[in-house]
């Protein structure tokens, strides 16, 4: 069976997997963004807290994803929970790091001006600091998403959702008629998804970054 025939006969299953893959990455990315920006906001003012946040998220990233999911299974069981936890943790690093760098990079004179014209701390954060730090944060989210696309494939190891199932099935039945097609369709699906997400980020950037600071 050629690759295209394979895709033709299995398209329903492939679409479901693709949808689940995208949905898992998207939801985990939303979680990682909220959590990451929050960690950045809480820690960027202090030298050591910021460094601690960056270092610990970087450490998480050094754990092989297969090992991480393996470690999570005894704690939270199989399926969706280990997938979501692992993906969110891996997505944190680029977001946290860029949030801290971005927030620290806001011109101190502007922070001074914001305070000087009578903005409260919260107003200053939401109206001046975060909007100005948003471009680097968005870049962090973009990098994290690309990374999660690949890592999400490993989730199938823990019976998680997504295109990883396709790949694992192929690897498990190596030598059989469709094994190569399975691996190929899973991999290509992930690549296409990654490109689509990236295009979406370009659009989001256009819509959310003020024209006054767009490069």
């Amino acid at each position, binding site marked *: 069976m050629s690759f295209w025939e394979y895709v033709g006969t299995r398209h329903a299953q492939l679409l479901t997997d693709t949808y689940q893959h995208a949905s898992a990455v998207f939801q985990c990315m939303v979680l990682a963004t909220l959590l990451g920006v929050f960690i950045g906001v809480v820690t960027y003012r202090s030298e050591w807290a910021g460094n601690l946040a960056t270092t610990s998220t970087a450490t998480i990233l050094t754990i092989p994803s297969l090992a991480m999911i393996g470690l999570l299974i005894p704690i939270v069981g199989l399926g969706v929970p280990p997938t979501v936890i692992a993906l969110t943790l891996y997505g944190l690093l680029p977001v946290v790091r860029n949030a801290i760098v971005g927030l620290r990079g806001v011109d101190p004179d502007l922070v001074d*001006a914001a305070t000087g014209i*009578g*903005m409260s701390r919260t107003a200053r954060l939401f109206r*001046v600091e975060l909007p*100005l730090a948003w471009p680097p944060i968005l870049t962090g989210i973009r990098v994290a998403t690309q990374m999660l696309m690949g890592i999400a494939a490993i989730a199938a190891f823990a019976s998680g959702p997504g295109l990883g199932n396709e790949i694992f099935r192929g690897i498990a039945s190596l030598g059989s008629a469709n094994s190569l097609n399975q691996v190929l369709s899973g991999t290509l699906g992930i690549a296409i998804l990654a490109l689509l997400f990236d295009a979406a980020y370009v659009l989001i950037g256009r819509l959310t970054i*003020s024209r006054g600071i767009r490069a």
Partner: protein
Amino acid sequence: MPETPENAATTGARIHLENLTKVYPGNPVPAVDNVNMEIKAGEIVILVGPSGCGKSTTLKMINRLIEPSSGRIRIGDEDVTDMDPVKLRRKIGYAIQASGLFPHMTVAQNIALVPKMIGWSAAKTRNRVEEMLDLVGLDPGEFHGRYPRQLSGGQQQRVGVARALAADPPVLLMDEPFGAVDPITRDHLQDELIRLQHELHKTICFVTHDFDEAIKIGDRIAVLRERSHIAQFDTPEAILTNPSDDFVSGFVGAGAALKRLNLTRVRDVGVVDFPTARIDDPLESIFDRLRSGSHNELLLLDPNHRPYKWLRRGDLALAKESLARAGTPVQHTVTRDATLRDALEAVLTDSAGRVSVTGRRGEYIGVVDMETLMNNVQELLEADRMEALEHQHQLREQRARQTQLEQEGLEA
């Protein structure tokens, strides 16, 4: 603004700093040490001094961007030392170097920030934005929607001032606002500020390290030495004529008397009359006046009464039947608003050492010559000197009183 007839702008409030001190932790020497200063309502006071003298720190303590370690701040009749700083700052305009505009907001959004924060309606805020842009000399239609990076340095600074004044605060703090623009633009901005202040009468506290800027803008100047100690606090005239010590005279720099000329206008020194004739007067009468009169020179005015030519007795030989070829055309005139420095410049370039003074439509008013200038300047300098001595005397007395009080306080 027809819909806001109660548009009477808030004018300045008095600022009173009492024993204001800032000590940073870990540093035994205070950054600002016991500053006492009263800034009158509607006055521009310039804090000037070398870098690191604490002038910016002093300024930032007024809106409590830096919390004073001890001392009191009063604005108007209110003690604001313990007031909620966020509320306080909304009543104090704040303009900083390089404008401090938020680059991700448009000009209009920047200006609207404070009015929105204090709860003005959208319509009132919108009107105010247009009004402020007008006030600082920018066309609202054109600049409203622009982003700061689409403006020149001078335009950004204007918007910065507009933002500071948008909620009509009685007090305006300016921290080296024109430090980052080129000299020509800076000159314009300074003129603009002086014009604005004529309209608005805010209380302005302005920090700079440029003494020339200080004498140009300030009603009074506080020359600060390290730890914000006031070396001299007086009018620009008094400081120029009679610096209280070597530190101040070093800061004033060379050419104090010349700088002094910038501070007096031609209208203040009185112009002298000069015999005139009109160009359409009969030739005979002009000739007669020159030949017989006590004057050997006349100023010929054109039909619009504007200075046209200087005519000497010796020129008559050339004149014959017409005045077309006789006399020297008037090249320089000064208005009554010109500074004495401009007048001196004109007098020096004129071969006969005088310049005619004209009114708003260029009509002849009188003449300023070297002698008037000399006499007037000497009188001015003498008067300044007396005034400065008196102020210094007062300052010394005040200091002595304060020292005495402190000593008594220690003993008690």
